[in-house]
């Protein structure tokens, strides 16, 4: 954890401006960091909680697509946690169109367009964070390492199997931690010297010397590039600036820590499933590292019917408040607020967002259901993927995603062509 004095001299930017196309349809009307995760959280909550728990209290969240949902969540869940009078804030920053008459053209451009914020605050350090990763990290340890090494840029990294690294930034690192190579989304990731099956990837967590950051994004602003940190800025610094890697380790075991880039629907589903394991790799229950969020004022979850085949059963699951499990069975699933599961219904390995209603006798298996969808009585989803594909998104991993606004089981209006 960083000291209050360092905290005052550090500004955090959370990059939350991507479209999140690979999480479509969950991102159809909301930014990726606003997607519900783990029943009660939004993805952004993990990064913001890490920041606040680490002692970072000056936070700009850069957004552009689908920002309403995120703005509402931050206002309800986060604004009151930080105190303006103490110089603390979490601000949502949409493109101001003052420095440039356009939306953010890339991650580096999003910082360049907001360089006036750094001009006003004049921090010594800037911490750049992604708003859509699930992990628990004390950024203070990384900042200490950054200062001790005299780094211009420190990149948090983690070793992953090579086949998982092709969509990420891959680092080549010397024994002293200095970064000597950087590949963005490589077809052939550089392996670790002592383990050819794994590579070191950037977690999208950076500590910058403020002047280095500004110099780099300002230079980039007058070049024909994609204005992206991974593609354009960091590769150009290797060999000329002191760039160091910070290996992210579990503070308790010293081994590799839990970190997930919830970049695809399959990752999203799997990362939710990680939470329902009897001993999950990712611990939501540590009182020393709470994950904050906004929780609506809803009544406690209730189960009804104790006896016989209509008995409600919830096993190996996370269930948010406000749900009524009325004679149905829920197994290895994550339920958000206000979900209803009616008699004889079965929900297995599924993720149900707020307000989902599972009708009597319906069966769901490996399904993600977005907000407020009513699954009609008796409907089965996740058992015949060919049939499901005609109505829903089916991922390469075989998970079915039912989007918000789906009208299932409704009779076509009089005169309508039934197939449409």
């Amino acid at each position, binding site marked *: 954890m960083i000291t209050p004095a360092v905290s005052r001299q550090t500004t955090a930017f959370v990059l939350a401006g991507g479209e999140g196309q690979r999480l479509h349809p969950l991102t159809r009307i909301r930014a990726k960091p606003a997607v519900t995760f783990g029943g009660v959280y939004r993805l952004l909550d993990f990064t913001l909680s890490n920041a606040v728990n680490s002692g970072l209290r000056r936070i700009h969240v850069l957004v552009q697509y689908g920002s309403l949902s995120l703005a509402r969540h931050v206002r309800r869940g986060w604004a009151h946690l930080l105190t303006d009078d103490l110089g603390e804030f979490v601000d949502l920053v949409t493109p101001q169109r*003052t*420095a*440039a*008459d*356009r939306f953010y053209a890339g991650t580096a451009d999003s910082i*360049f367009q907001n*360089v*006036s914020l*750094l*001009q006003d605050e004049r921090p010594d350090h800037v911490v750049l964070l992604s708003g859509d990763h699930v992990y628990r990290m004390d950024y203070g340890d990384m900042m200490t390492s950054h200062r001790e090494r005299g780094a211009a840029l420190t990149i948090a990294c983690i070793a992953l199997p090579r086949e998982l690294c092709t969509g990420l930034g891959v680092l080549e690192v010397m024994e002293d931690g200095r970064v000597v190579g950087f590949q963005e989304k490589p077809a052939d990731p550089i392996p670790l010297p002592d383990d050819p099956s794994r590579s070191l990837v950037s977690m999208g967590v950076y500590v910058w010397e403020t002047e280095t950051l*500004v*110099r780099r994004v*300002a*230079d980039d*602003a*007058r*070049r*024909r590039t994609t204005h992206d940190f991974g593609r354009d800025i960091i590769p150009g610094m290797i060999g000329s600036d002191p760039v160091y890697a910070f290996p992210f380790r579990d503070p308790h075991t010293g081994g590799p820590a839990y970190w997930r880039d919830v970049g695809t629907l399959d990752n999203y589903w799997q990362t939710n499933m990680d939470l329902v394991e009897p001993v999950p790799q990712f611990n939501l229950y540590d009182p020393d590292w709470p994950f904050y969020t906004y929780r609506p004022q809803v009544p406690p979850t209730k189960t009804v019917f104790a006896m016989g085949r209509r008995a409600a059963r919830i096993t190996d699951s996370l269930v948010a408040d406000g749900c009524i499990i009325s004679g149905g069975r829920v197994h290895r699933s994550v339920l958000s607020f206000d979900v209803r599961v009616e008699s004889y219904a079965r929900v297995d390995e599924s993720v149900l967002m707020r307000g989902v209603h599972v009708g009597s006798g319906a069966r769901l298996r490996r399904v993600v259901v977005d907000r407020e969808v009513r699954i009609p009585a008796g409907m089965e989803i996740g058992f015949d993927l060919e049939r499901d594909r005609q109505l829903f998104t089916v991922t390469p991993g075989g998970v079915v995603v039912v989007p918000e606004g789906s009208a299932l089981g409704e009779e076509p209006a009089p005169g309508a062509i039934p197939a449409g």
Partner: protein
Amino acid sequence: MAKIVVAEDHEHLRKLYEVELQAEGYEVVLARDGREAIELAQAHRPDCVVLDIAMPGVDGIEALLKILSADNEIPVILNTAYASYKDNFSTWAAAAYVIKSGDLTELKDTIRTVLAERSQQAGAAEA
């Protein structure tokens, strides 16, 4: 012949830049403030823009950002009497920062350097 837009609010300095830079072989387009510089940069697509900073209305820093926003490959040189603007992060997006002087040697050298870099970059992009 390279074309340069020069923004300067003092009339006698505008005249000086026009005469001296034309003598260097450049085509010179004069602007009286930042707003004119933005318009002329869009209309003329110059090879380089020279901006005074302290000008009435749209100043040189705002004009720098607007010009780069429309076409980030036009090099912009800030040409000001004040060194303190170097502390303004927005000025770091300029290709160069020159302290204004009656002797235009440094400005002319900087323009030459910036234009050489521009043609080098254009060559690299074509190759």
